[in-house]
């Protein structure tokens, strides 16, 4: 090595010290020591790869939605939402004169998630509007991917619920006829019998209701936009006694339910079994339906099984942290177990109510796909646990005591707002950091 260096030095007397030095260094350069600037650890994981994984994880739920709601009611809104999201991001980047970011596929993920949060058979322009709002206002205005402070898909859904409350809260039944999977008939005699006996209305005798139902079917041609009539037609055969007792309750109860147009399982829990005086035994027939997906609700949230498959896939490839979904689901389960209707805690019966609640509504969808959005959830492990627990507690509170039947979207949005605070509080202590006081 020395001889080489001295050779170089000797061989270029007038070439300038800098040139000599460079040559010397280059000659000296050991083959396995490369000096370069950070980052030194490279991985082949890119944003678009993560997004692809998420899209793959959502495919079972997508398939389930098409199976249970049909192509027109489920697939078309999904496609429209994706198209609107991508188009909006493209246009927004043009207006803001930024580099086109649609290549990172995050718009597609947002589009799918927006669609998953909508009721099936929503007018397509409404779905597109939600998607446009989600991307333009909740994401691009704040700087694009990584800049949003709340989950864009949930923001889009919140905007739609505020703008079009009636269509956004009317859930048609699945193609296999189930609206809420709950054995209302079994429960009806006990919980609603008081309502029936106290109703002096003559308008709810069975012949009258069957009559109005058949005339509704006849009028369906005129009022096709009225999903109540359509659903009434579908349920007419099986549910005449149900509608009977239900409209009796509607006549005399202060908070009535609409068995025909929007009684998802959670809605029924909140409004029919008032103050949670339900008997857990009423739920067991519903659990199977809830797990596999033959239940009314938003497009993406029906099949707990499909969502579980997707979620476990994402956790296994480390695209999302297991802590948030685990903490979220565990908290909801525990809280509903503590507040279950039976009064006992260690019986099989006491587990039915919490199981029902983690399978019903968009809990799996929210826990695996929306609460885990890396931009809007905390970074630290402890923070993520707290985030999941907070979401769970809020969901429990809204479902049990709040005015809405479904609490997932609002609880995630609220916890998104608190996430930076959680991050600050759970900042890891640097080793050797001096304590401020003593």
């Amino acid at each position, binding site marked *: 090595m020395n001889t080489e260096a001295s050779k170089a030095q000797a061989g270029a007397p007038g070439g300038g010290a800098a040139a000599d030095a460079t040559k010397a260094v280059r000659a000296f350069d050991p083959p396995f020591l490369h000096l370069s600037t950070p980052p030194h650890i490279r991985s082949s994981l890119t944003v678009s790869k993560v997004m692809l994984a998420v899209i793959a994880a959502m495919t079972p739920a997508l398939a389930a939605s098409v199976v249970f709601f049909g192509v027109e009611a489920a697939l078309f809104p999904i496609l429209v939402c994706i198209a609107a999201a991508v188009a909006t991001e493209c246009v927004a980047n043009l207006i803001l004169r930024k580099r086109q970011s649609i290549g990172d596929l995050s718009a597609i993920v947002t589009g799918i998630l927006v669609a998953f949060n909508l009721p099936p058979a929503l007018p397509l322009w409404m779905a597109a509007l939600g998607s446009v709002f989600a991307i333009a*206002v909740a994401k691009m205005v704040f700087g694009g991917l990584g800049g949003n402070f709340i989950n864009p898909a949930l923001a889009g859904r919140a905007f739609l619920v505020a703008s079009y409350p009636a269509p956004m809260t009317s859930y048609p039944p699945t193609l296999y006829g189930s609206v809420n999977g709950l054995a209302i008939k079994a429960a009806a005699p006990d919980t609603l019998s008081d309502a029936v006996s106290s109703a002096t209305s003559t308008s709810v005798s069975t012949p009258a209701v069957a009559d109005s139902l058949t005339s509704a079917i006849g009028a369906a041609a005129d009022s096709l936009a009225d999903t109540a009539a359509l659903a009434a037609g579908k349920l007419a055969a099986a549910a005449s006694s149900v509608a009977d007792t239900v409209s009796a309750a509607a006549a005399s109860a202060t908070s009535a339910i609409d068995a025909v147009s929007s009684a998802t399982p959670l809605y029924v829990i909140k409004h029919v079994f008032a103050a949670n005086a339900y008997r857990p035994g009423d739920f067991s027939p519903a659990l199977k339906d809830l797990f596999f997906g033959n239940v009314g609700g938003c497009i993406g949230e029906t099949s707990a099984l499909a969502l579980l498959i997707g979620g476990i896939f994402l956790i296994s490839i480390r695209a999302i942290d297991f802590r948030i979904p685990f903490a979220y689901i565990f908290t909801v389960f525990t809280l509903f177990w503590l507040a279950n209707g039976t009064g006992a805690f260690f019986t099989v019966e006491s587990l039915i109510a919490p199981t029902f609640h983690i399978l019903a509504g968009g809990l799996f969808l929210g826990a695996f796909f929306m609460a885990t959005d890396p931009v809007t959830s905390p970074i630290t492990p402890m923070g993520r646990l707290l985030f999941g627990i907070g979401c769970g507690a809020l969901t429990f509170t809204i479902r049990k005591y709040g005015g809405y039947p479904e609490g997932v979207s609002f609880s995630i949005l609220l916890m998104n707002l608190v996430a930076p605070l959680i991050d600050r509080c759970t900042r890891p202590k640097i080793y050797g950091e001096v304590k401020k006081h003593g």
Partner: protein
Amino acid sequence: MASVSLVKEIKRGVITENPILILALGLCPSLAVSTSVKNGLGMGLAATFVLAFSNVIISIIKGWIPDKVRIPCFIVVIATFVSILQLLIKAYVPLLDEQLGIFIPLIVVNCIILGRAEAFASKNNPMRSLVDGFVMGLGFTVSLLILSCIREFLGSNKLWDLLVVPNFKPMTAMILAPGGFFAIAFVMGVVNWVRGWKKKEVKKA
């Protein structure tokens, strides 16, 4: 001389120093009242009335107000005019009273009025204060009208309570509180964008 500067003053009040969109004063009543053009116009005219007259009175008595209690004095004068305004509205335009409700008394704490009193009327002669109050009120009304048009059309498919587009399902969120924020943010964004252009033009020239 006076008429030329009136045009300039109007341009100042409506465009270059618009209270809502540029000075960002008086946003609370704007959010609440811009749900329909009728309400927006009513509120704008009411505020202009109060602004103009309170500016004049404050300018006239500015010599006698001790500096330390000037804010309470301004508020008393403004509140007087608002009370008179409310009585007049209740007597002659009760529909507006119903629609605007509590936002008429809230004109007292409208930052525009107190702001102009402090920044302008207490330092200028009555004539100029009157003009200033009037043009600021005009600017307030114009921007309220713009906001109300946007919100009423998008939120209830109406303008002045008359339907606009057949078969258009309006977005109710626009007439609720979030819609107010979105509308103001959007309009302010456009205004700032245009101002950015103008600045670039001035720089180039």
